[in-house]
């Protein structure tokens, strides 16, 4: 195991975060605060409780997940896309590091950043609405698992993308709609039966439902199913990355 190599990549990526602290941290916190003001305070005050949870508190897990998904994907995809774009990837390819080490470095740093951000958003939410966390260990578990899985997904996007436009297209066209339709702002039980069935094909539903369960003990789908779905997606991403490095697809000519 090339521990020094992993550490070098991890530090390099974390240094990038701290260099761009404003974009990396301030912007998502500001966006989330706006959500709380608009949906939590302004609109939420006119909304009834969902599963006996006040609307402001109900949307907290969904909002954290929304940021977590976006940040994990953008951090990791940008992290590996930049060296490809700048040409500095030659060094990574010629270094004595295995794909698993490269992955631990990049995905580890991206996941660290998004978990830090998730915690920061939870802290910010305290200023707007009171909430409790029923299963804190599970909450952290969901946070980590989601951050790692979606950082991995972002890493794949970064490997695949060959332009800045492509880097943006999947988060914008797929992830954002899936998150909004994934029950961040509502319970899928509020949907007509047919849409409830369709929603079950949306992986984000399981993430948000499981995460919300760790806060309030209520869930749209079984928690075990949630964990199973995230783990399954993690395995799919891992297998794909393994294949990418083995075949050299898009990175090694």
């Amino acid at each position: 195991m090339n521990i020094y190599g992993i550490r070098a990549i991890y530090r390099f990526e974390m240094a990038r975060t701290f260099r761009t602290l404003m974009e990396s941290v301030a912007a998502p916190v500001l966006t989330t605060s706006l959500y709380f003001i608009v949906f939590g305070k302004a609109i939420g005050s006119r909304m009834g409780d969902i599963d006996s949870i006040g609307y402001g508190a109900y949307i907290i897990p969904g909002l954290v997940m929304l940021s977590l998904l976006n940040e994990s994907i953008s951090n990791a995809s940008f992290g590996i896309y930049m060296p490809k774009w700048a040409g500095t990837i030659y060094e990574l390819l010629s270094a004595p590091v295995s794909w698993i080490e490269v992955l631990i470095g990049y995905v580890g740093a991206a996941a660290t950043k998004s978990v830090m951000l998730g915690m920061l958003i939870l802290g910010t939410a305290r200023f707007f609405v009171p909430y409790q966390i029923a299963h804190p260990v599970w909450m952290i578990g969901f946070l980590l698992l989601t951050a790692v899985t979606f950082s991995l997904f972002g890493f794949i996007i970064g490997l695949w993308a060959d332009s800045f436009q492509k880097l943006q297209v999947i988060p914008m066209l797929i992830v954002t709609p899936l998150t909004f339709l994934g029950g961040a702002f509502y319970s899928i039980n509020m949907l007509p039966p047919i849409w409830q069935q369709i929603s079950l094909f949306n992986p984000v539903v399981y993430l948000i439902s499981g995460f919300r369960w760790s806060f309030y003990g209520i869930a749209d789908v079984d928690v075990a199913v949630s964990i199973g779905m995230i783990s399954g997606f993690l395995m799919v991403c891992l297998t794909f990355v393994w294949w990418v490095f083995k075949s050299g697809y898009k990175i090694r000519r």
Partner: protein
Amino acid sequence: MNKSPTARLSAESSIPIISVRGVNKTYAGGFQALKNINLDIQRGEIFALLGPNGAGKTTLISIVCGIVNATAGSIIADGHDIARDYRAARAAIGLVPQELHTDAFESVWATVTFSRGLFGKPSNPTYLEKVLRDLSLWDKRNEKIMALSGGMKRRVLIAKALSHEPTILFLDEPSAGVDVELRHDMWRMVRELREQGTTIILTTHYIEEAEQMADRIGVISKGELILVEDKEVLMRKLGKKQLTLRLRQPMSIIPAELSNWSLTLCEDGHALVYSFDTQTEETGIAELLRALGEHGIEFKDLRSSESSLEDIFVSLVHRPMEAQA
């Protein structure tokens, strides 16, 4: 039976540090960049890979370094197969790429520290300080790379390649876009590295560079390694000398009396050029000059010149079959 340390050492030094066997590369589009390359690089030598643009120099280097996968063939670097035992092989190699690919926002110090770690070496600020000082980068260590000039960026890339103390150093077109001062600095540094035992492989299309630096020369053209030779031997073997006589009266044909010498007329008959082999004892110059005097052919000036590596190179690349024969 165990060999004595000295016997083992001399046996080791005769084993090539890089051994390329039957390497082919065909890109996805069908373009064959390398055709059955076989090449041995000796430990501690400076080897220059010469060839025109697009000949396959960078592809060959990229395969040895792990950036491009070979379609067929095998490569041993520092005793390790580059595919099966890639960690050990790559740890021994430093690469200075042709293009100035740098992390614009990083400081010089951060980028060399990163490179050292990436290649699996524990931090060693004393060593990195020495590398930066040798490359006149120490004063710039806290500056962002984007603030540096092109020449300085080239130095940063060299520092990165040396950060993990490689035994093999690849310099891909080190002089591209570099001013004279930096070029000479670089040549000095390369010689120092060789004295410390580093093996250096450089690609170039500046013949002067190969002529100045290399111990051996390989010429690559259209994906084929058409020649590998000791530089001195190559220059002796293919080197030709020419004697140019500027005539007082122009000549339309070479007189039959001078048919014993290989002469050509140049500059509309104003110059007579005599080509001779540098290897032979008798150059025939004295006899030629005597014959000219006897036949009343007067000249106002004479000049002799030796063919450079450039001439040899041009003749090889343009007539590879002829030159080999």
